[in-house]
């Protein structure tokens, strides 16, 4: 299983072409590693400091995003988290707003 969905499986190569299936993830996983970001890109200036993490989903794939809705000091490796639908950024003041997933402590 891979995230994001790929046209070709990195392990089985050509055999996988046209045979990849979509799977819905549970949205639950645990923190593999994290960092508290103080030097932020322009679009993230308002959020800093924020917690960036790599999360391993229960299905096995890993994803990178922020951890929200908790204090930075509460974040630990192994902590259970779940995805939350959030605003990621925007293309300028009047541009398209990007939405996507972040993680919050599991309920």
């Amino acid at each position, binding site marked *: 299983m891979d995230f994001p969905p790929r046209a070709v499986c990195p392990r089985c190569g050509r055999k996988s072409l046209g045979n990849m299936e979509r799977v819905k993830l549970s949205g639950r996983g645990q923190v593999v590693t994290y960092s508290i970001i103080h030097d932020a890109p322009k679009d993230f200036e308002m959020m800093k400091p924020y917690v960036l993490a790599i999360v391993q989903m229960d299905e096995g794939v*890993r994803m990178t995003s922020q951890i929200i809705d908790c204090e930075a000091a509460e974040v630990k490796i192994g902590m259970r988290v779940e995805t939350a639908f959030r605003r990621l950024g925007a293309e300028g003041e009047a541009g398209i707003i990007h939405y996507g997933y972040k993680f919050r402590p599991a309920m």
Partner: protein
Amino acid sequence: MNVRRVSIIGVGETQFGELWEKSFRDLGIEAGLRAMQEAKIAAENVDALYLGNMSAGKFIDQEHVAALVADYSGLVDQHLPTVRVEGGGACSAIALHQAAMSIASGVHDIVIVGGAEKMTDVGDVEANAILSSTTDQEWESVFGATFAGLYAMMARRHMFEHGTTREQLAAVAVKNHRNGSMNPNAQFQKEITLETVLQAPRVAEPLGVFDCAPLSDGAAALVLCSAEKARKFTDTPINLIGTGHATDFLAVHDRRDITTMDASVIAGKRAFHAAGKTPNDVKVAEVHDNFTITEIMAIEDLRFVPKGKGGYATEDGETALNARISVNTSGGLKARGYPVGATGVAQAVEIVRQLRGEGGRRQVSGAEVGLTHTLGGTGGTAVVHLFERGD
């Protein structure tokens, strides 16, 4: 296949630093002409120019930079073939490989390889965003992953799995600044203390300002020649005896192990195999230390120390000047400076000087074999070159 051996007959580099008074082309020309002068070759001897450059398009809004550098270096009447190589921070290490293959194959006899970057024409925030463009923009950067943040997550996991400490990370910066204090071309020539590193403002925890290599301007160049003809130009040719070049998943979260760069492991194995050497043969190495954690992972991935022991070895002084293996004698990216595109060639310049015995106050005694290790992005590309005295 019959391949010809390749020697380095001339090296040159600029000062590294925030060089407001010098343009990109000034830097490229300066390094290239110094290398040509040292090799005592004329324009008509040169068969081709390879140039590593990460992102002149974004940093100075100029593309087509290899032809530009040849033009302004007085090589225009030669109408040379020029190649600009891209590959994040590994670009000029890849350029060196490509140039060496053009000689090994018999197509060219003498080739100039350069690396150059002019980073300080843009502000810090923009420069860091440009560095970030070598990571996976769609699946890392969009979510707030900075270049430092991705390396910081490797550091955090390394600390968790292997017991690496903040002090061990800091020891890398202290050592490289000490080496840089003996390099007149280094951006930072001042020693720093462990406390300075530990108390510096945080960038991306656990990394602080002194865990990060600076933004720099600078360039470096090599003159390569087929080994059989090298003796005509120099008494101390340095041979390029093996290269490994490998890639991996671009995104850190896709990697097999977040605390190992498989690209480095495989590039290292390929280079040692090609050269018929082992890590024990290497006395001096320039490894990619854009962050302190990067050097710790590099010395593990190249098998200089066992996995997980990079921090301990650094803290114990095993990688200090003239210790078991001298790592980043130039000061590394940390203190010599990190003009991204110049990195691989600048590392090679240092190794050539060390193997010739021209290391000055930072000379490694008895260095016969040297290594360079250069990364693109967060380890999506790794290149390892091995060098040996040709006499």
